[in-house]
């Protein structure tokens, strides 16, 4: 009997079980459901509008619409693959390794995993959206509508198959933890760059580079002969009677599905035959490493955090991202030198987000510290010390580079404003760290395991989206005194000295940090048992 129905049932049981575990999960699920319904309705509304326009459109307009559809599908497919790689992974419950004990034939397992992916929440949303393609071509005749239906199914299946094949290949070929970490850093940075692409384009970076409709159409024509974009060109082939093109693209899509399926099978076979053969040689320091310079418990904990930071792609990714943010702002605001400061300011602000969930990154091992009777104050101080030892030099360096690039070194008002901005950057870093000391002891959300930064612990999406936003907002609100003083100093002449924001920002940051450490310490001491229980619960989501 096929394993597919069982795997699909298991997938939905786990999703439902996780959703009803807490009211937060339920709220998140309802929001996701509403968003999915919204996306589907919007797709169908758009498709119906296009569908009523299409019979009156000339061949040129039809081709332009076809080009847009191809480019959209290619972008979406690449986006899905990237997002799968970075955030969702294979979904730990749909990993083939989960089924290794049951002796399910590889082909059945592959089909089961494909169908489970297709009938998951994201797969179903994609399917319903793409089925709207039939509404576009419905008035072009029954044949066109049927071809559009086939095209929609193929588009979703190929997207799913390509992303699974990429994940299978990554899982099989990228075995060393170091390479995995490198890939994780790379993918995260690419996604970050893609997210910033609209701002980059808006900044006029493409000025002078001619991107006309014809070149886009020709690009789309080329992409329509790749598995990434061929599916949505099928209805147009049918309408225009390009039978050879229709058959050719259809064969290519089917061949892609077969190839992806084959890749999945080969990966399963390879993993089975080479299980345990990829034992990595660990690179460990001689002696005590950084721990060798510690004088007390706080020093030792700070050293341990730094040793971990070097090996933890989940935390390490913040630093290259910091650089990306600064470079992007430098490109976007290249005409407005003083706006370059947005880079370090935003960088310092968001750098503290992982610190706000620091205990989750330690996981169950935190029990070792709690069992040893470590005080909350020692824990908080060690985190502040280790974090500042890396983050502060990075922020100062970026600040100095920005200072040089902004042209403020010549002196005068611009230099004072730049130094104010540098102080605000440092102040934000300190206050963000202070807020993080309270958040990390109070609000913990699940993180992927250190060994599987690609995997997605069920149910982390809502908390991971909401809690960092709350933390970022708190970090801003708590710096209001600095912002007010800066605003007054820069907009009024003579009432407040222009340099005043400098000491205010630093004092604001230091006070928030001190208060954050004090409050965070008390919360940590009071909630030790609750923290351990929470970490225990989240650890089960990582396995």
């Amino acid at each position: 009997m096929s394993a597919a129905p069982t795997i699909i049932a298991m997938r939905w049981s786990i999703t439902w079980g996780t959703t009803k575990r807490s009211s937060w999960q339920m709220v998140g699920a309802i929001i996701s459901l509403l968003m999915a319904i919204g996306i589907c309705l919007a797709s169908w509304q758009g498709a119906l509008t296009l569908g009523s326009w299409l019979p009156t459109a000339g061949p040129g307009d039809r081709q332009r619409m076809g080009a847009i559809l191809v480019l959209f599908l290619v972008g979406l497919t690449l986006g899905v693959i990237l997002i799968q790689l970075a955030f969702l992974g294979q979904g730990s419950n749909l990993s083939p390794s989960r089924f290794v004990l049951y002796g399910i034939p590889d082909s059945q397992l592959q089909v089961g995993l494909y169908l489970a992916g297709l009938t998951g929440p994201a797969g179903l949303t994609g399917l319903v959206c793409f089925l709207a393609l039939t509404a576009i071509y419905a008035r072009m005749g029954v044949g066109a509508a049927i071809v559009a239906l086939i095209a929609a199914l193929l588009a979703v299946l190929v997207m799913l198959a390509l992303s699974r094949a990429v994940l299978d290949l990554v899982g099989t070929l990228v075995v060393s933890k170091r390479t995995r970490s490198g890939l994780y850093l790379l993918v995260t940075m690419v996604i970050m760059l893609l997210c910033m692409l609209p701002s980059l384009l808006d900044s006029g970076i493409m000025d002078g580079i001619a991107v006309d409709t014809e070149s886009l159409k020709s690009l789309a024509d080329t992409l329509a002969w790749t598995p990434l974009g061929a599916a949505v060109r099928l209805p147009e082939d049918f309408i225009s009677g390009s039978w050879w093109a229709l058959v050719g693209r259809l064969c290519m899509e089917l061949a892609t599905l077969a190839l992806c399926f084959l890749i999945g099978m080969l990966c399963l076979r390879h993993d089975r035959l080479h299980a345990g053969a990829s034992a990595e040689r660990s690179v460990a320091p001689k002696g005590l490493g950084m721990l060798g310079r510690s004088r007390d418990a706080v020093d030792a904990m700070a050293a341990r955090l730094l040793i971990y930071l070097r090996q933890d792609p989940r935390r390490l990714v913040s630093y290259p991202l910091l650089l990306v943010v600064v470079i992007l702002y430098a490109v976007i605001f290249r005409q407005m030198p003083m706006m370059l400061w947005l880079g370090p300011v935003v960088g310092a602000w968001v750098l503290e987000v992982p610190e706000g969930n620091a205990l989750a990154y330690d996981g169950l091992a935190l029990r070792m510290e709690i069992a040893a009777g470590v005080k909350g104050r020692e824990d908080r101080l060690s985190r502040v010390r280790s974090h500042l030892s890396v983050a502060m030099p990075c922020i100062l360096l970026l600040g100095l580079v920005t200072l040089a690039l902004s042209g403020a070194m010549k002196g005068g008002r611009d230099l004072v404003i730049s130094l104010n901005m540098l102080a605000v950057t440092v102040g934000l870093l300190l206050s963000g760290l202070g807020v993080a000391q309270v958040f990390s002891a109070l609000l913990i959300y699940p993180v992927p395991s250190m060994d599987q930064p690609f995997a997605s612990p069920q149910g982390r999406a809502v908390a991971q989206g909401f809690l960092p936003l709350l933390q970022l907002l708190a970090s801003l609100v708590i710096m209001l005194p600095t912002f007010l003083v800066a605003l007054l100093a820069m907009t009024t002449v003579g009432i407040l000295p222009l340099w005043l924001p400098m000491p205010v920002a630093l004092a604001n940051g230091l006070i928030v940090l001190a208060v954050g450490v004090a409050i965070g310490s008390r919360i940590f001491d009071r909630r030790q048992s609750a923290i351990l229980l929470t970490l225990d619960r989240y650890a089960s989501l990582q396995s």
Partner: protein
Amino acid sequence: MSDEAQATSMTAQTAAVPPPDPQAAVSIRALVKCYQGRPAVNALSLDIPRGSFYGIVGPNGAGKTTTLNMMTGLLVPDSGNVMILGRDVWSDVDTAKRVIGVMPQADQIFDRLTGLQLLVYSGMLRRMPRSEALGRARDLLEAFDLTDAGGKRVCDYSSGMTKKICLATAMIHSPRLLVLDEPFESVDPVSSANLKDILAEYVDTGGTVVISSHVMALVERMCTHVAIIDHGLVRADGTVAQVASGEDLEDRFLELVGGRHQAKRIAWLNGSGSEEDQETQ
């Protein structure tokens, strides 16, 4: 029984218990912990004598781990008292933690550190100077046959080696009370024998070892005292001989805990219905 009735019953038991014994290594009185209204530990009282090798046994879900967690300051009890070596645990939990050595599980250690780093770290967390922690770490690595692996990251250890390093982290500060959860699980016989020697020597110097285990033969052979826990209560405690009452400890355990029944015959568990069988037919 309703929650209210359970609470009344627990209060009645709490009122009747004598005060904790400061002479005992561990003295527990009327300890209660409920999860979602259900008692995991139900007014449990127990005295563990100093210098004893004490086994805590019980079926899964009996409340052993919850009791050990409350005893070692890792879980706040709903009510009741725990005294460790004459100190009330929950009035100064950090001091109590420092006199106890709790063996962590494999996933409860910082396994990206090397064996040597982990031991020194464990010592320094307990306020030991680095040089002293380093000396003791080297001694422990030698005692546990881990000298060659001291420079390797713990995540690259085998499960037996990990068990040994976990035990070593609990011993580095020379606690007078060691709490070990299944210490010999997945440890090879040679290492296991060495560990037993180390623990026996530790007990000879006046230290107290509390182990939680499912292996009755091990408890019977190694422990001086034993407590059988079931449904959050102590069913029997005392020396191994007292608890066994002339029987085999495992039989006595089954007698006290119950749950043993005539094995139901599973008609299909004979290979019929397997693919091979179907092919033959």
